[in-house]
């Protein structure tokens, strides 16, 4: 007779639970169909503003001016990429916080904490959902945006751009946990989210090269993984130039973040979780 210790799940049970969490999120979002459309339209509109401003103010020498600062004269592609990557970065960055806040408010956070599925497994499912959920609209927005502004979406090294996105995703998920830990503790998301949205977009250089920032800010921006991701994608697609000169060096930096950020994120998240269990529990909202 074989006995399994209850509550010690096998790998496949964990995977199955993570998939169920991802599936739940998809089912849930499918009941709010307007959101997907918004996610596709917003980055295009967001990029259109500086693009039109550039056309209005830059005049005949706009592209040359832009090339002098960024290494590429294609400011339309540059801004569109910034806007689409930002869409992806911001939804990944806030995914843990949004998930926790949603579950806190509906009371389901306590319900899932009652089950033997660990929060690590649940987070896995949520990250899976969020990746697909934010990557897909960002890609569609990029393609549609290119067509709207008269660019060829297939120009540049698309595969390498995707590698940068994939490598950037993991440190992002780690940072997302850090931010999630804050929400778990303070039980508030909106005000923080609004503030962080601006900080993130500014640091990662959504509409401008990091090189034009003051030195101190530049230093902070370089410690921020999405900066490397945005620049990597722009270099792969437009050839703006890698920070360290070669794609593999920039990618190596992302790899370092890839190990550090999730470890730090998970450590802080667990500590916060335990602190809350010691006091009021996750049921408060």
């Amino acid at each position: 007779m074989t006995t399994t210790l209850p509550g010690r799940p096998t790998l496949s049970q964990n995977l199955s639970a993570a998939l169920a969490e991802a599936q739940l999120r998809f089912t849930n979002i499918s009941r709010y169909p307007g959101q997907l459309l918004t996610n596709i339209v917003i980055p295009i509109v967001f990029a259109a503003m500086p693009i039109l401003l550039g056309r209005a103010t830059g005049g005949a020498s706009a592209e040359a001016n832009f090339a002098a600062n960024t290494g590429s004269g294609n400011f339309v592609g540059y801004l569109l990429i910034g806007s689409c990557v930002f869409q992806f970065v911001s939804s990944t960055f806030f995914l843990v916080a949004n998930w926790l806040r949603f579950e806190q408010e509906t009371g389901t956070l306590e319900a899932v904490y009652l089950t033997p599925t660990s929060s690590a497994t649940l987070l896995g499912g949520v990250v899976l959902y969020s990746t697909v959920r934010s990557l897909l609209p960002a890609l569609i927005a990029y393609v549609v945006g290119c067509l709207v502004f008269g660019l060829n979406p297939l120009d540049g090294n698309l595969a390498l751009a995707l590698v940068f996105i994939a490598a950037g995703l993991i440190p992002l998920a780690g940072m997302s946990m850090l931010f999630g830990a804050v929400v778990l503790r303070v039980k508030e998301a909106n005000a923080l989210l609004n503030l962080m949205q601006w900080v993130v977009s500014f640091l990662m250089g959504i509409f401008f090269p990091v090189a034009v920032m003051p030195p101190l800010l530049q230093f902070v921006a370089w410690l921020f993984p999405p900066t490397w991701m945005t620049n990597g994608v722009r270099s792969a697609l437009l050839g703006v130039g890698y920070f360290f000169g070669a794609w593999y060096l920039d990618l190596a930096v992302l790899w370092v973040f890839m190990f550090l950020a999730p470890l730090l994120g998970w450590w802080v998240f667990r500590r916060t979780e335990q602190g809350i269990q010691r006091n009021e529990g996750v049921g408060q909202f």
Partner: protein
Amino acid sequence: MLGQVTVEALTKTYLTRQRQGLFKSTEKAVPALRGVSLEIRPGELFGLLGPNGAGKTTLIKCLTTLLLPTGGRAWINGHELTQADNAIRATTGCMLMGERGLYWKLTARENLVFFGALYHLDPAARRRRADELIEQLGLGEIADRAVESYSSGQRMKLAFAKALINDAPLLILDEPTNTLDVPSARELRAVVRDLNQQGKTVIYTTHIMAEAETLCDRVAIVDHGEVLALGTVPELKASLRREAVVKVEGVISTKATHAVEQLPGVSNVATTLNGHTTLTVVSQETHAALLPRLIETLTAHQAVIQKIAPEEPTLEDVFIARTGRTLADDTRVK
């Protein structure tokens, strides 16, 4: 042998911030459990009876690993609390926050299948178990509609079904009949009794005396985070056997009430006000000795007696005898 649930001197103190203006706040300790000890036997239907704020939910949250107790120890289904929390969660079914804790945009079936996955049932077993529960609780007609379209009672039923998804040997229910109408509550209690007869150990929390009295094998009366009395319902009543309880309804002034309190043998007088006054008088003397003196004192103080009757003791009387308050009183620590 160890019980299904053994609790030893469990304490829990919440720390809260007390606001004192815009920027100032001080830390305040709220003791919610002050040394609770219990032993619940396998197969028992065990009641936790106590007024609002007694600490029932806090105890349940500690036993289900949601909260870390401040002190004391506990064993649940043979696993020590904080040592094998996952095993405790896997072997316990819990209904905690009523209709909250469900995904309102999803259907009943989707909710049950999802929670089945979190309890590590394989995909076929999840669906089978969800079907069974939908059938058993008569949720068939609404099972494929979004939960947001349910009535409050239907949501409670689904929350109850969710607690059964992992078919655990221990079922913990925190006021499961809250917001249910009388027939639905009766129906739910019948299901609980069935499950108990099939061998499940049940912890049933309530602030309704009659519910504990009709349903539970043994009852712990909890107040201010302490177990005041524990035993079978007849045992608890027998502990009052030598006390007489008389209920008086009418127009009774405070002065008259004070006079009753001074009567020889009277150990407790609880008052409820709802239009007129109801006194519950507990006395060490027999009914025969108490009744004439009671009527005499009340009429001497111009009370109008509309109804007076000696009472068979109820669990509420046990509570009153121990605390001087009725179960309806709010005892939350302010």
